[in-house]
């Protein structure tokens, strides 16, 4: 299963792109697996990835949520609006 993850702010700068493509051998992938794979690909961002939320279809999702093909996935670092 292939999943694109939207990146923002410092995460995007570090990755050099606003999107990162993940590839999983498994057909059933949950939010935790996405987190783990992002940490593998961006090892110097591990702490920030840990502190970040994952949004699935523009709603915050817990680590156990299982992803479907076509879901919009985003990594949301701690917010600082206002």
């Amino acid at each position, binding site marked *: 299963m292939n999943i694109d993850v939207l990146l923002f702010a410092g995460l995007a700068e570090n990755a050099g792109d606003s999107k990162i493509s993940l590839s999983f051998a498994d057909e059933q992938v949950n939010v935790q697996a996405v987190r783990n794979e992002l940490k593998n690909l961006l090892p110097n961002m591990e702490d920030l990835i840990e502190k970040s939320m994952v949004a699935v279809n523009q709603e915050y999702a817990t680590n156990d949520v299982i992803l479907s093909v076509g879901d919009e996935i985003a990594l949301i670092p701690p*917010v600082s609006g*206002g």
Partner: protein
Amino acid sequence: MKNFYLTKEKIEIQPLIDLVTDRNAGAICTFIGTVREMTKGKKTLYLEYQAYIEMAEKKLQQIGEEIKADHLDADVAIAHRIGRLDISDVAVAIAVSTPHRAASFEACRYAIERIKEIVPIWKQENWEDGQQWVGDQKEQIAYPSGKPELGGDKK
């Protein structure tokens, strides 16, 4: 005009007030967040705001719904700017109307605090000697429960 939106243009408060003006309102409380030059002795030159725009607008709308769940007769409008902002520019503006004043103050405060918790907008500080994306503006440990409160949950 939408009640909850992000914009690259300068924010004016009056259109937001107009959006919440109601014959049965006895109070309209507004909040304007502006770009501060000095923070703990450090001089900001300008800020850059970035957002996950579609989700951010949804979350602003959610905040409006949370307020209406508490104050049935409230009307809410919120605008947040993105892009480059100079000192004293308006970053966020909120208008809340209610029949009586106490609820309008309470709801307006709630809206800005909630923005800092759940709305996916990020601020990059640009100082004389560097720049940094700011996280965790409320200076709490980020999401100790693993996430900010979900959906329409309230704190």
